[in-house]
């Protein structure tokens, strides 16, 4: 694994260069989890990350992979060609999009047969996959392109004493041969990130448990079982809040939290913050600018506790 924690943020390559990316929004972030987009844009502005909007981009293809894999490859490849034309790497917010775009990118770069097949689809819209760019999730940009050491200098208002549980989700880690980021069995990047904010990362049982979002449209009961398990584990570890790095995971834990509470007759009352909101708070950006009021599980208790430990 290339990104083991001790190495995180040590690559010197891009440190002082201007960070500029083609910004791939995906579907869930702008249409279901606007707070994630708002807080991510706000934080990136502060960090000096320049974004070029990907006009005319489409869904990454992941949501219909089960139906028609070829269309999924065509959709994700089309997005890659939009960024290739701009000569920019893609920056993503959604782990699902990241996984799909990275898989397609690596597959088409390394496999001539697949590339020719997918290019035959793209030919109908006068596009061609060249294989000239990379795809990175914002968190990976923080780890590899900015570096945690430099990121630390932006922390003006450390989240001292706050206990935060990390939810890694699946698609930034697996399948590992395509993602090649952190140890897929025992990842550390998010725990390190929480510590960098000055907060206390709480470890809990089944940290890597999936949120089940992919099958929510087919069978919602199973994901609700999964998220209920997660909340029990996170509460047992006495976390003040949870954090996610993917809009789909967030949708499950925040917007479906009350459904899980109803289903099991339990109360979790666990605020789930996007990692960009936590980062923004730690950078001293006012809560109003980070769309904290758009969370379904209100983080007021968390914010008050934060003030008290300041």
């Amino acid at each position, binding site marked *: 694994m290339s990104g083991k924690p001790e190495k995180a943020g040590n690559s010197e390559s891009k440190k002082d260069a201007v960070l500029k990316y083609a910004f791939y929004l995906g*579907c*869930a972030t*702008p*249409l279901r989890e*606007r707070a994630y*987009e*708002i807080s991510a844009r706000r934080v990136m502005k502060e960090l000096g990350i320049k974004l070029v*909007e990907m*006009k*005319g*981009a*489409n*869904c990454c293809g*992941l*949501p*219909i*992979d*089960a*139906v*028609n*894999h*070829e*269309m999924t*490859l*065509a*959709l994700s490849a*089309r997005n890659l060609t939009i960024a290739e034309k701009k000569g920019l790497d893609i920056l993503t917010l959604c782990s699902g999009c990241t996984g799909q775009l990275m898989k397609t990118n690596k597959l088409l770069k390394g496999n001539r047969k697949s590339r020719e*097949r997918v290019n*035959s*689809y*793209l030919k*109908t*819209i006068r596009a061609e996959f060249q294989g000239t760019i990379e795809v990175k999730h914002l968190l990976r940009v923080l780890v590899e392109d900015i570096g945690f050491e430099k990121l630390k200098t932006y922390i003006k208002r450390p989240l001292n004493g706050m206990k935060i549980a990390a939810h890694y989700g*699946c*698609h930034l880690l*697996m*399948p590992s041969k395509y993602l090649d980021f952190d140890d*897929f069995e025992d990842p550390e990047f998010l725990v390190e990130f929480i510590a960098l904010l000055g907060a206390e990362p709480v470890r809990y*049982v*089944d940290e890597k*448990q*999936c949120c*089940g*979002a*992919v*099958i929510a*449209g*087919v*069978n919602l*009961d*199973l*994901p*609700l*079982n*999964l998220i209920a*398990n997660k909340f*029990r*584990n996170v509460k047992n570890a006495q976390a003040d809040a949870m954090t996610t790095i993917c809009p789909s995971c967030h949708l499950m834990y925040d917007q479906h939290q009350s459904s899980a509470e109803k*289903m*099991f007759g339990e109360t979790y009352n666990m605020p789930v913050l996007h990692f960009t909101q936590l980062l923004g708070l730690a950078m001293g950006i006012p809560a109003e600018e980070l769309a904290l009021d758009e969370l379904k599980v209100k983080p007021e208790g968390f914010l008050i506790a934060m003030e008290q430990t300041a």
Partner: protein
Amino acid sequence: MEPKATHSQTHEVDDMTDNAVESDGVKLQTPSRVDPKFKHEVLSMPGGETLKYCFQCGTCTSCCPIADITDSYRPRTAIKLAQLGLEERLLSSNTIWLCAACYTCTDHCPQGVEVKDVLRVFQNLAVKKGYIPRVYRDVGKNILDAGYAHKISKFKMKKRIAIGLPPLSEAPPAHMEKLAKATGFHETIAEKEDKE
């Protein structure tokens, strides 16, 4: 131990393995059609190539977060049905749609079987036979309309601009249409009699 799913939330039977039908209160075993060529069809599809390496150890099922909470999803069983050529029983089963696509199985398989991708090949083949959960048809249509998996509401778009976010651009429908035709996506989500 964490509490498992309560009874009402689990599925009644594993419909990949239970072959019985009820008739006048008597359980009858239906004969299964075996198609020895089926595994070759799976092997020939992108992502299905590694089916042949499976030696049925069960690591996929034992590490699967869904199999952990319900008896009705078993990736190993699905692979076994394909290896045996029990095509109809596999493809008509609801349970192949319970894969959460987390890739835990793929990363843990000692034989290098790309379990999730093999499962996806089963799903794609099931769709070709007309077995498709409703939700995928809806998502497919949304993508063809404007490039997004979700419907875009005009109200939300106005609100975006009002709070200072850049407008969401739609993908050209002609592009979506052409890619759908080239990949056969058109036929797969076309409105037919749902066998689901």
